[in-house]
């Protein structure tokens, strides 16, 4: 890793962020966090009402990164082989052979739209791909592209007939980002872009896969002091009711975040530090990523859920409490 490569990290990050923000209006924080996950090689779960730009976000990101992109619409009848691929028989020279036909999973950026609509069997087909970047069909294991990134979406409003993601699968997402309605100005801009004569600029390819890899390597080498690492671990430990000093956690949380949560925190904080032009990680970087990285890893007891206790509120309290 050379000095020039490290010094251009911020520049490259800003470029891609700018490019995506041109196409997705009013979701600057979401775009920033999404790029953090993308550079870190983590998967993201986008939650939001329909029409907020979840699909557009994924498509724009794929376009800006100059990597292959695939969209999978999850439906209740979707089978695992529909996403991983299947063996197909083909005849050649009078012989019938079976050939593996790769599924849509074999792309760099996967948009798993409405992932909670597919059956658990189909959802679990993604588990191996998301964690290990491989697909196993029969006795064969196929490696996915080096840059592999799953962007899953789900609608929090239509829960009837859906299959909520299991905890094991949720834990494999680096971040969970909640899209909210943008502001007035952003909406007006979107209207102008889509219904007026204003032509939205096309998304330029800013980075390629190799550059993304380099950025990832630079992020790995960012120094994080022991105090900062301990802070991340303390934060994760506080989410567990048996280790927590917080009354809210002990009362409402069944189980806390796993080690993946701490990994997500630290990795995201390193990329955030570099993106901000710093060459070290601070506790504030960790604190800023607490909600995106931990909110989908805490599970509330029924009484807490019934009282509409929010996981985000619990995490905010922990951030203020932990020193």
């Amino acid at each position, binding site marked *: *890793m050379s000095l020039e490569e*490290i*010094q251009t990290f911020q520049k490259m990050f800003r470029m891609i962020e700018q490019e995506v923000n041109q196409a997705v209006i009013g979701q600057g924080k979401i775009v920033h966090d999404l790029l953090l996950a993308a550079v870190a090689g983590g998967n993201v779960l986008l939650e939001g009402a329909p029409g907020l730009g979840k699909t557009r976000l994924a498509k724009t990101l794929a376009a800006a990164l100059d990597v292959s992109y695939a969209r999978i619409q999850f439906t209740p009848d979707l089978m695992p082989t529909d996403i991983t691929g299947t063996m197909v028989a083909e005849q050649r020279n009078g012989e019938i052979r079976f050939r593996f036909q790769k599924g849509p999973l074999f792309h760099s950026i996967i948009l798993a739209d409405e992932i909670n609509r597919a059956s658990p069997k189909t959802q679990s087909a993604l588990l191996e791909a998301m964690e290990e970047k491989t697909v196993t069909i029969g006795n064969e294991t196929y490696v996915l592209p080096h840059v592999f990134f799953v962007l899953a979406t789900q609608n929090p409003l239509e829960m009837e007939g859906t299959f909520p993601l299991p905890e094991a699968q949720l834990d494999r997402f680096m971040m969970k980002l909640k899209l909210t309605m943008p502001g007035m100005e952003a909406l007006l801009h979107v209207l102008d872009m889509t219904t007026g004569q204003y032509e939205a600029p096309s998304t330029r390819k800013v980075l390629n896969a190799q550059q993304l890899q380099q950025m990832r390597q630079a992020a790995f080498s960012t*120094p994080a*002091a022991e105090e900062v690492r301990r802070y991340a671990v303390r934060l994760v430990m506080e989410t567990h009711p048996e280790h927590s000093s917080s009354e809210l956690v002990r009362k409402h949380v069944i189980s806390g975040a796993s080690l993946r949560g701490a990994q997500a925190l630290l990795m995201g904080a390193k990329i955030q530090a570099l993106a901000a032009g710093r*060459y*070290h*990680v601070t506790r504030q970087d960790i604190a800023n990523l607490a909600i995106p990285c931990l909110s989908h890893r805490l599970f509330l007891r029924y009484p807490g859920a019934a009282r509409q206790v929010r996981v985000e509120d619990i995490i905010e309290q922990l951030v203020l409490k932990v020193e």
Partner: protein
Amino acid sequence: MPRDEYIDRALSRMRWKLWQNRMVQAMCVGAVASGIWILTIGGISLFIPLLYSGTKAWVGSAVLFGGSLLYSACRRPSLRDAAICGDALGMEDRLITYLEYRHCDSPMILLFIEETKKALSVVQPVAHWHMCLNKKWLTYAVILLLVGISAWFVPAPAREAASDREKIDKRIQAEREHVQKLRNDISAAAEIHNIQQMEKTLASLQGELAHSTSYQEAAKAVADAKKAIVQGNAQGSGPLASVAYAMLQGTDFPDTGMSRTEMMQWARSLTGNDQVPFPNGVQQKMLQNVEKIKKDLNSSPVPDALQSAYEQLQNHQMTPSDLEKLLDVQSQVGMPAPETEKIAGKLEQIQERLLALDATASEGKAGETPVSSLAFGNQSGLTNGEQVHTNGTEAIAAGGGGMQVRQSSNGTGGFGSAGQHKPATHPHNMVKGEEATRLAGTSSPSLLRGSLGKEGDIREREAVNVWAESGGSGPLGQAWATFQKNGMEYVNRQDIPLAREQVIEHYFAQLSGGKERVAGRDSNVSKNVSHD
């Protein structure tokens, strides 16, 4: 190596400032602890005098304060502590990250160190560091110290009593050491008659002094010990050694362990003359005692001296001179040895010191010296008493009755701690008092000795010119009686220790006419002469 001197220097300066701050905070904590300690000792000692000890309070507080300061001085903060402080002042975890990665050699670390230097020059945490005192602890410390110190000035009879007792214990302990020295001297002496009895008596005296709670009690113990030694020595010399004492039992004989000279003084005081027989009542009693002694001797031959005394008593012709002869005979068979006299003398010095200390303590309560008031003639009944007081040496009171009250001091004026008033009619005691009160090694002549002459008898030399002119004992006797009556009335009204009162009473009892006034001290006699 990517270590940077600029950052290292900043961290060192930060560490030094942090160390100073910790020491100041430790001083606050130490001051609070000292205040609590002083307040505890001072407050509780108001009610429980056993806990009273000024030394303990101040030493304890000094130890607490110094200990906390020393503890903080020994706990030098680490560079990590300094880095944490610096990061809190705006460096955003840069310093702590620097400490961890300063030994790494990578492009990222190089960039990081450069960026940290820039941030350090902008933020300047060392310059913005301010000593932070815990105001709450400081306030507590000030309040506790003020209240604690004030508690020591609260008058408390219990504490004052404890303080007095502490002083008394110390002084009596000093006298115990004198007694121990005496014991050591006895052990080293070649021949001392009845040494075992003396050692036993002195050992017992040490024990009694250890348990004494007042000077009077200690002085009484010393007096008893002295009496036991003198009597024991005399008794150990054979039957005749105690004849004189046994003969005088039941008379007015004070029986305070007097030596031969004291006995003769007493005898002469009864008759006024060596050749004048004792009063009939006294002789009758002495005769009874001699008959008893003879009976006790059973079949043993009666010594000639005793028989002679018996015959004299039968004829009512026993005089002080005869008694002296009997004592001479007694000395041949064993009088108290010179060593015994020495030991008795030293014990008497100890007794006198203790009585003087008691008198000083009483003075503090009464507010004035009763005897000096007597000598000054401040009371209405003391028109004949007057004192000419010299500057801290000796004073002689000149009275119309020719009574002299002599006061010796150790140069401090009036009654010194080792000084004691002695009645003039006990020249032997007066000499000893002089020796007791004079500073060691002094060789200045004693007025008393000048007046004593060879015989050492003041009474003989202390003659009032007035009496000589008057030429008779009738007016003299009236003057003496009036003076004695007025004097004792005054004494009885004052808060004088019993032992001292007895001394004064005894003095009055010994007064007689025919005393000369000492030359040069009769400046006021002429006035009294005119009254007489």
